[in-house]
């Protein structure tokens, strides 16, 4: 058709520009565009809306894991969930949101204040514990985080809690000592409940660029992550980096954060996410 020449020249450049701006990274974009071009080459007629349909399909199939459930502990044990991640990405707020979600589901929840380092971190979680009506296990500022975790597991077991949510201090994946501290907290919990922690979620701020990949890689190598919480998606950032993360590391996004209140958490929906990438 007479539109074919202009279609292939400009449309793929337009697609590349659009996808790059979602923070997907050049490698992932190149793979996607190549897949779409292959799909398009099999078609008799082509137009730009078909390109975008094919692109959406390719994206949805690239985000191939649909795992938004929180794993359950074996009967008789509280399910232990760790929330970890780089500084300021939304861990403490996400712990509050998860607690709120579980409580709405009539579950019994206990929180652990394992950020014993940052100023007023315990106070911050304390406010959330009050607002959600959850029991908080805490020690004094500067206490050993692993000791708090140990205490929290005992407390959760004694109270017959369904879930124990552990808030941890922000840390850069490049800080070896802090990554070791996190492994120690994990080992401490494993000693008390062999199958725990049952869920280790990393928070990734939607504004993060390509650095999210080494973040997830390093935390994953240290702890064996089970999922991602993509926070601050209520901003203008698209969070497209999770497509690259899924494609390269196969770690599922389980939840998205869409605001600062305790209700602002939703299970990840790949179709909605892909549609939002193009808005």
């Amino acid at each position, binding site marked *: 058709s007479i539109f074919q020449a202009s279609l292939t020249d400009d449309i793929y450049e337009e697609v590349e*520009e659009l996808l*790059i*701006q*979602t*923070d997907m*990274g*050049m490698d992932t974009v190149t793979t996607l565009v190549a897949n779409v071009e292959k799909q398009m080459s099999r078609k008799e007629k082509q137009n730009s809306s078909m390109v975008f349909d094919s692109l959406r399909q390719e994206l949805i199939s690239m985000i191939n894991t649909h795992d938004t459930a929180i794993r359950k502990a074996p009967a008789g044990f509280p399910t232990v969930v760790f929330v970890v991640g*780089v*500084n*300021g*990405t*939304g861990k403490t707020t996400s712990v509050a949101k998860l607690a709120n979600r579980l409580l709405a589901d009539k579950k019994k929840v206990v929180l652990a204040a394992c950020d014993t*380092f*940052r*100023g*007023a971190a315990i*106070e*911050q979680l*304390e*406010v*959330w514990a009050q607002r959600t009506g959850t029991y908080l296990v805490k020690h004094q500022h500067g206490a050993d985080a692993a000791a708090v975790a140990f205490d929290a597991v005992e407390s959760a077991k004694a109270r017959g809690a369904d879930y124990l949510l552990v808030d941890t201090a922000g840390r*850069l*994946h*490049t*800080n070896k000592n802090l990554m070791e501290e996190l492994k120690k907290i994990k080992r401490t919990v494993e000693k008390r409940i062999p199958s725990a922690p049952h869920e280790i979620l990393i928070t990734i*701020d*939607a*504004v*993060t*660029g*390509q*650095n*999210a990949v*080494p*973040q997830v890689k390093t935390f994953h190598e240290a702890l064996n992550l089970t999922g991602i919480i993509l926070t*601050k998606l*209520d*901003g*203008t*950032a*698209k969070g497209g*980096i999770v497509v690259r993360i899924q494609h390269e590391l196969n770690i599922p996004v389980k939840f998205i954060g869409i605001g*600062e209140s305790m209700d602002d958490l939703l299970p990840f929906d790949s179709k909605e996410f892909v549609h939002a990438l193009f808005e």
Partner: protein
Amino acid sequence: SLSEKLNSVFKNLRGYGRLSEKNIKDALREIKLALLEADVNYIVVKEFVEAVKEKAVGSKVLDSITPGQQIVKIVHDEIVRLMGGTPYPVELKGKKNRIMLVGLQGSGKTTSAAKLASYFRKKGFSPFMVALDIQRPAAMDQLAFLGKQIDVPVYLDKKEKKVVKIAEQAMEKARQTEVSLELFDTAGRLHIDDALMDELISLKNTIKPDEILFVADSMTGQDAVNSIKVFHDKLSLTGVILTKIDGDARGGAALSIKSTTGCPIRFVGIGEKINDFDVFYPERMASRVLG
């Protein structure tokens, strides 16, 4: 690294003037990929590559025995130039200085307020911090904790619901003392939240700060220019503090921010402790972005 990649693009050349169109095209593509991987904004990358292309087809590169190194130098110098060339830390002049800190959620404003207080105290100023984040749980406690840690007074009001009133009360209190630097920490907010952006405008009109610094996370990707453009349009920022440089984020946002808004990066956050604070050096950032 980009220098290694560029050198390999040209490694099979011998002698002068043998650079082909393809060599230049390959080199420009490597530069584009490296800058995108470093999180430089897509539009900024396009303009940058055009600028480098113009310089690259100049005689310096064509006559060079090591065209790869020549292009690396052009790229490096262009990045340094775009980031302002030389360090430009905030310098306080008068007897009463006011600095307001603004930015997206979690970027490091509260921590940076304390770092600035300590930095300027070492320069002989008497700092005073004002807690204007009345929304985030325990935000005021966080600033109070930091103030206590560095022995700097903090003004906070847990009862007042209007931040403008808190700012006025704080400034009145400061007026009665020898305080020479007032630092205002504000709540993180989205640039698309009109009500909260209006709140910042009211605060600016009340405080009339000497400096309004946007605190940005160095791991920010393509969205960096979207947020800073709005903050800059509405507040006329006087600079940026780039935080969490102690990580391995390449920090391309630094280049995007400066080249799209002209806002100079004044300081960097290099850790969580009070002393983890430094002047921004464009040369060092250029090397980091180049990888």
